[in-house]
Every structure is written in structure tokens, then in C-alpha cells.
């Protein structure tokens, strides 16, 4: 599997960085990628067990830890490529070294089966040989791969799921350490508000309350029990006086703001603006919340020498760097270890709450401190997936073929992840007395798939493409990475535009795409999704059908989605047909789960979600004010998985986000004859589009 150099093998080059045979009968596999509910641990076990020819029950994945390999962030649908690639190469190399040692012992050829090398009567297991095989050697990623039993490619049950169904302790929220105290944070009523007056005596003296901490605008109640911390925080909130906020922006005016504020402009693709565009349009998306079902949680313990932090972060090393920076400590005396939390779809408050716990723990040496955010803070103070404005222009020739394309994307950058900004991007650090406001977010570099510009360049042959990202240099609402970053709205915009062009030229939307699509694997998913959906067959009245397609990041998985909607008094999505090609499939059931989950989440964003804010305060901070898709609203989802065992494996977690939004938008247009360009596609947005003269 030759390809680009795996960054994980640069930061952790030795076999021993990844694999450990020192426990009899067990292979320990290390990873820097976090289990987020996406099933990465299970896929990694399959890779290692298959390659080493051991039963998968013998392989244990150690969660990310700053004592282990540094794989930066669990992001970009790269975990199977990075961690899976590193473990595959390590296992191939390790097996070769063990095989050589076994042959030397046996004095001839050996056969490997279930972790044991055999020649005649003699047999040696990996663990028998562990003392004489030196794994502290650099991984050679170019070795030929052994024949394996085929565990890679077979559906495997997730190793973490049974505990979660049975209620066994598994989450960080379940972790209990002797002597642990619990804390709740009291946030300001709005961004830009400062604490003027506090009356803490009553709360501090309440039963089970240990202390009230105030540091600038950072306020925390520490208690013996979680409910005492919650009650104390509720009580204290009424005893604090805050200054007003000078923030003036609200979510109704975000498009004007993003296109009016000073920006840093980066060319993504260097064509020029089409001279005579036949179709121009503006598309928008709002801020979107992570909205995990479990509020973020962390535990920290300062033992006087080392600060230990347990976190469901996506990146233990970057988080450690920012915690150390914020506390003014040496990184070497801070340890961050990953423990599973509730679902994570990007840079959510996991890192913020880890700092909350760390900060409080430094005030209570020797006592473990667990902090959990409230639901209101989780929906109100998390970094959000940034709002964006996308302007598209396309030029066509007399045959309707696209001959030029232009994209302008406006928005805050898609990453304010820890250690990526000039100062720590930890909420409470910014609220402390001498804290520094969190700088405006940035975008990942082009080589990492960009952020605002992710999937800005269509995967079609459309002549010269001009694409310029305009990153807003003011950030009134903190923005950061949310599943698929800019690809969600960019694919929605491109695919809406393609559909418009198909209609304008009287060509079937699938046919129109195929005319512009040279990529064979792209054509295959479009054709597969169309065929599965019986594309072209007549639909019942009031129904519409639409398609969306993209290759994620231009370098990842290929995905096409067909949506069918029923539009009577409201728009209801009745079915999705999805075709996906993520190369060699490790765990088919895992890929299906990820693709369907991504599509359903995208559907929720697309039909319902929008962070509401005004004057520095997020008002969509309850489930009533930030509704997400419910069981009765989830459509049937049909998945066609195109396995390509001869191709490199690619991540699948984000591939269906953009195409699903696009398919639904196009189906809505098919049903109602109106184009809605502003997400989410709510009844209000549909009415607004119907009334708009430009629609």
C-alpha cells in the first residue's frame, strides 16, 4: 500500500511504539486515535489480529495517552489511514522479525497459526520469543504483506458496545476515584459579560459543598457529590452580578457579517472568474452545534508532582500542550489519558472541560476532581461548526456543458483546536483573571484537506476552477471543527448548483453529473445509488427525488446519496439510498453504521439545526430550543457498499454528510419546484424561498 508517508510513523517510528508482546498471550496495540463511538478500536484490532494471525480476543487496544504515540487529532476521517496504517505496517514488520527468530530456533521453516510458529514437534509463540525479538527498530512500511486469514474485510462486533448496552462502567462519566470531588462551572450570562459582584458565603457553607472558586470570570462550585455541585451552581448563579455584553451580532445577520468583516483570503484553486456566468447563486449554513447526548466531562488530579487529566478529547497531545501553556507548567509534568465519553463529532467541549478539571485540581492537590458541563453550557458554550456563505458561479457552453467554475467561501476558520492557535483555546483560560481571549479560528492547511475550502473544488470536469476562501478575522461566536468542516455546505452548494444547471439545460440530474464526471469510482457510486433508488421511475404525487455526490476532501471516500421526500404540509424525508466506496473495507458493518449515522446526523442539521444567538448569548441551549431529528423522523436508509480489497482503505465517518444535505435539497426542489439555498431547510426557509423573486 504505497502512498503518502504516514505522519503517525514519523512521530512514532518504532515497532515498539505500536505493539507490545510483553504480556503472555496478549498483544497490546497502541493508538493515538480516540474511540468516539465510531468503532476505531474494533477496526484496529482486526488489522493487528489478521496481520499477526492471532485471535482477535488476544489483541487489546490501549487508549490514547501522552505516554503513547502522538497522532495529533482524531479528525478528518483519517484514523484507519494513520493509526490503521501504522499498526498494519508495524504488525507486518513484527511478524517478519518473529518469523525469523522462530526459524532460527527451529533450524528451518515454520508455520504460523494462532500466534504460534510450528515446525514438526517444536512450537514457539510470539510470547515465547518476545525476549529475543527486538521491536525497538524503525517500522519498514514497504515490506510485502503476508497471506492472512481474512479477518480484515469481515464484519466484527464492536468491542465497546456490549458494556454500553448492559450499563457497565465504560464512560469517563462513570469513572470514580477515591476521594474524588465534583465541580460545576457557572458561566457568564453572555459573551463579553464580566463578573462585578459575588456573594459566595451561603453557597460555600451549604451541605456537601467543598468550596467556591472565583478567578476573573471563571466561577466553579466544588462539592462532595455531583448533585451538591449542581445545586450549588444553580444557587450561586442567582448571587452573581455581571456586566452587560457589548456584542451586537445575532444569527439573523451572520451572512452580512461574514461578507462584510475583514478577511484573510486564500486561493484554493487559481482559475479566474467566469466572464459570462450562466448561473450564480449564494448558499448559506448557520452555526451548528455538536449536541452530543452526554455533556462533556473530565477528571484531573494534581499530586504535587504530576498533573493527570482523563479526557474524552480527540487529541491527548495537543490538549496537554494547551493545558501546560495555560497553567504555565512544563508539558513533561502533565499527562493526558483518553477515556471514552459520549459521541464526539469534532472539537466539542471535551478539551474545555479538561482544562476546567485541571485548573480546579491545581487548587486541591491530592484530590481527584471530576467536572461535567450542564446541558445548557454544552449547547450554549461549546465551539460550534461555523456559519458559512458560499457564492458560486458557473459558465456553460451552448451544449450545456460546464466550462468554468468559481467558488467564494466566507466564514470563520474551522479549527480552534488546542495548540493550533497563538494562545490556548480553552474556554475557562479566556475567562480567568489574566486570561487571553481565544483567537479567531484558523483553517487546517490545504494538505490536511482545508476547512472553509474543504470540497470547494467540484469533483467534476468543469473547466478552470477559481476558488478563494475568505476567513473572517473576527469571531463573535467561537467556531471550530464539526464533522466534515466546510465540506457539508460546499457539497450542498455545488450539488444544488449542478441540479439547477441540469434543469436549465433540460438534462436529467444523474445524467448531467455523469457527463461531467470522469472519475470511475465516482461514476460507480452515482450509478449505484441511482440504480438502488429506481431513479427515473415515476413517483407518487407530492414526492420528489434528488441526488448528491462528492468524494470527501477530494482524496477520501466516494459517496452518492439519493433522497426521496414527501412534501405536503411539511417536508418529510422518506428514504435515503447511499452508495459508498471507501477502498478496502476493514469492518463492513462498521462502515455501514458510520455512513448511516453520518447521513442521519446530516439530515438533522439539514432539516432542523441552527444555533440561535443575540447580544453574545446563545439562546438555543436546551433541547426544546435546539431540536434534533427524532425517531419518528428518521427515514429508511439503504446502503450499497462497494468494497475494493485491492485499494487502500479510507475513512468513512464524514463521507455522507455533504451528499445527504445535497440530495435532500435537490429532492425538495424536485417536489416543490423551489430552490432553498439557506440551510436549514425549515418550513420558514421554504416559505422565504417561495417568496423570494430570485428563487
Amino acid at each position, binding site marked *: 500500500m504505497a502512498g503518502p508517508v504516514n505522519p503517525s510513523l514519523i512521530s512514532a517510528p518504532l515497532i515498539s511504539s505500536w505493539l507490545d508482546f510483553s504480556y503472555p498471550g496478549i498483544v497490546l496495540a497502541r493508538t493515538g486515535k480516540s474511540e468516539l463511538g465510531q468503532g476505531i478500536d474494533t477496526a484496529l484490532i482486526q488489522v493487528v489480529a489478521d496481520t499477526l494471525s492471532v485471535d482477535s480476543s488476544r489483541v487489546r487496544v490501549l487508549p490514547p495517552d501522552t505516554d503513547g504515540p502522538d497522532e495529533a487529532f482524531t479528525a478528518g476521517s483519517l484514523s484507519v489511514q494513520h493509526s490503521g496504517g501504522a499498526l498494519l505496517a508495524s504488525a507486518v514488520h513484527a511478524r517478519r522479525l518473529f518469523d525469523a527468530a522462530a526459524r532460527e530456533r527451529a533450524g528451518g521453516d515454520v508455520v504460523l497459526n494462532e500466534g504460534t510458529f510450528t515446525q514438526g514437534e517444536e512450537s514457539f509463540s510470539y510470547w515465547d520469543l518476545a525476549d529475543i525479538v527486538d521491536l525497538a527498530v524503525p517500522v519498514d512500511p514497504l515490506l510485502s504483506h503476508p497471506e492472512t486469514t481474512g479477518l480484515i474485510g469481515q464484519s466484527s462486533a464492536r468491542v465497546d458496545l456490549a458494556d454500553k448496552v448492559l450499563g457497565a462502567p465504560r464512560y469517563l462519566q462513570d469513572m470514580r476515584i477515591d476521594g474524588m470531588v465534583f465541580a460545576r462551572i457557572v458561566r457568564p450570562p453572555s459573551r463579553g459579560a464580566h463578573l462585578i459582584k459575588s456573594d459566595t458565603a451561603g453557597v460555600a457553607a451549604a451541605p456537601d459543598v467543598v468550596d467556591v472558586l472565583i478567578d476573573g470570570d471563571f466561577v466553579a462550585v466544588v462539592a462532595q457529590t455531583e448533585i451538591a455541585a449542581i445545586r450549588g451552581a444553580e444557587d450561586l448563579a442567582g448571587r452573581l452580578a455581571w456586566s452587560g455584553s457589548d456584542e451586537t451580532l445575532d444569527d439573523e445577520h451572520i451572512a452580512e457579517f461574514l461578507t462584510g468583516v475583514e478577511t484573510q483570503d486564500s486561493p484554493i484553486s487559481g482559475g479566474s472568474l467566469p466572464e459570462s456566468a450562466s448561473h450564480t447563486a449564494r448558499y448559506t449554513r448557520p452555526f451548528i452545534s455538536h449536541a452530543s*447526548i452526554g455533556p462533556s466531562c473530565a477528571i484531573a488530579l494534581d499530586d504535587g508532582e504530576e498533573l493527570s487529566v482523563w479526557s474524552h478529547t480527540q487529541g491527548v497531545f495537543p490538549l496537554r500542550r494547551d493545558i501546560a501553556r495555560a497553567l504555565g507548567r512544563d508539558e513533561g509534568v502533565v499527562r493526558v489519558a483518553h477515556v471514552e465519553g459520549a459521541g464526539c463529532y469534532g472539537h466539542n467541549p471535551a478539551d474545555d472541560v479538561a482544562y476546567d478539571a485541571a485548573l480546579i485540581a491545581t487548587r486541591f492537590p491530592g484530590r481527584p476532581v471530576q467536572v461535567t458541563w450542564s*446541558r445548557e453550557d454544552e449547547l450554549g458554550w461549546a465551539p460550534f461548526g461555523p456559519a458559512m456563505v458560499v457564492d458560486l458561479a458557473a459558465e456553460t457552453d451552448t451544449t450545456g456543458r460546464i466550462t468554468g467554475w468559481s467558488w467564494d467561501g466566507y466564514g470563520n476558520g474551522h479549527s480552534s483546536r488546542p495548540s493550533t492557535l497563538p494562545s490556548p483555546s480553552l474556554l475557562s483560560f479566556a475567562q480567568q483573571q489574566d486570561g487571553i481571549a481565544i483567537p479567531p479560528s484558523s483553517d487546517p492547511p490545504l494538505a490536511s484537506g482545508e476547512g472553509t475550502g474543504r470540497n470547494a473544488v467540484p469533483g467534476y470536469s468543469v473547466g478552470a476552477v477559481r476558488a478563494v476562501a475568505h476567513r473572517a478575522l473576527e469571531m463573535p461566536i467561537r467556531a471550530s471543527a464539526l464533522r466534515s468542516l466546510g465540506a457539508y455546505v460546499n457539497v450542498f452548494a455545488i450539488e444544488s448548483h449542478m441540479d439547477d444547471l441540469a434543469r436549465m439545460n433540460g438534462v436529467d440530474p444523474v445524467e448531467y453529473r455523469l457527463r461531467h464526471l470522469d472519475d470511475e469510482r465516482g461514476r460507480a457510486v452515482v450509478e449505484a445509488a441511482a440504480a438502488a433508488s429506481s431513479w427515473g421511475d415515476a413517483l407518487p404525487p407530492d414526492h420528489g427525488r434528488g441526488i448528491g455526490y462528492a468524494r470527501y476532501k477530494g482524496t477520501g471516500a466516494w459517496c452518492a446519496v439519493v433522497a426521496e421526500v414527501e412534501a405536503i404540509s411539511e417536508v418529510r424525508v422518506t428514504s435515503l439510498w447511499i452508495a459508498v466506496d471507501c477502498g478496502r473495507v476493514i469492518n463492513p458493518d462498521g462502515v455501514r453504521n458510520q455512513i448511516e449515522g453520518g447521513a442521519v446526523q446530516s439530515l438533522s442539521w439539514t432539516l432542523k439545526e441552527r444555533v440561535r444567538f443575540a447580544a453574545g448569548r446563545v439562546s438555543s441551549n436546551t433541547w426544546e430550543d435546539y431540536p*434534533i431529528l427524532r*425517531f419518528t423522523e428518521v427515514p429508511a436508509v439503504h446502503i450499497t457498499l462497494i468494497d475494493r480489497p485491492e485499494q487502500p482503505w479510507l475513512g468513512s465517518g464524514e463521507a455522507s454528510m455533504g451528499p445527504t444535505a445535497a440530495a435532500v435539497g435537490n429532492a425538495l426542489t424536485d417536489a416543490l419546484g423551489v430552490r432553498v439555498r439557506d440551510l436549514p431547510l425549515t418550513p420558514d426557509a421554504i416559505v422565504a424561498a417561495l417568496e423570494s423573486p430570485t428563487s
Partner: protein
Amino acid sequence: MDHDVTVNGSQHRVATADTTPLLWVLRDSLGLTGTRYGCGAGSCGACTVWVDGQPTHSCDTPMWSAAGHEITTVEGLTERGPHPVQTELIDGQAGQCGYCLSGIVMRSAALVDRARDQGRVLTGPEVREALDGHLCRCGAHNRIVAAVIRASEA
């Protein structure tokens, strides 16, 4: 103030305020962390337990109303031998992060038990309707519904 509750068949006397939600007695006082905190407002279903066999949000059930009743949590259901709903959820790999699942297990198990008592198999629409107050963010809804229907067939 002392409150007597029966949790998963064991009797407990818990000293806490009348208004303390059952959720926090389970998690803080009894160490039963399988019941999840999700919103504290009865809006997401993650904290669902049984009170005298009825699925109930433990986050907005104060101890004064829970006292004297029989509480069953996901751990209690597991102890009796996993409920068919739990078995089917695992067999169907119906979940991703799983944080919503213990509440969904409790709601679905009651639904399945009732259907089986009535000698009938659940339909998709009625499972979706019953679970509509339970939020899942990972998009595992369809797998969950299929697992609950299968559990009612067993």
C-alpha cells in the same frame, strides 16, 4: 432527610434532600452509573429507569416521589440476565457512542415485555413513537428500532 427506596431488589436508606432527583441518588449515593445524565430536564430520555415497572425520567423524579417505590435500572435489568432488548441491540450492533442506550433499553424493555404479554410483535411505527422522547445523536435509530422489533419476536 432519609428516604427508603428499593433499587434492583435491594433496599436502601438514603439521606438526601426531598428534592434531590432520583438520578443523582443512583449515581452519587448508590454508585449506579449506568443511568445517564443527559439534560436534567426530562428532554432527552438518557436517564430513563423503571419506577414500579413504568419507564420514568430519573432526572426529574424527586426523591420524595421515588421513596417507597421499586426502582429498576439498566444494571438491574442486566443482572436478571440480559433482557432480549439488550441481546438484540448487541447482536444488531445498534449503537455508536451508546450514551443514549441505557435509557432506550429501559423504555424498550418495558414496551417489549408488554407486547409479549399481549402475544404480539411490535411494529416499526409504534417503536418509533415510543422512543420519540429519546434523543440519539449518532444516527443509530434504525438499528435500534430493528433490534427492539426483533426482541418482541423472540
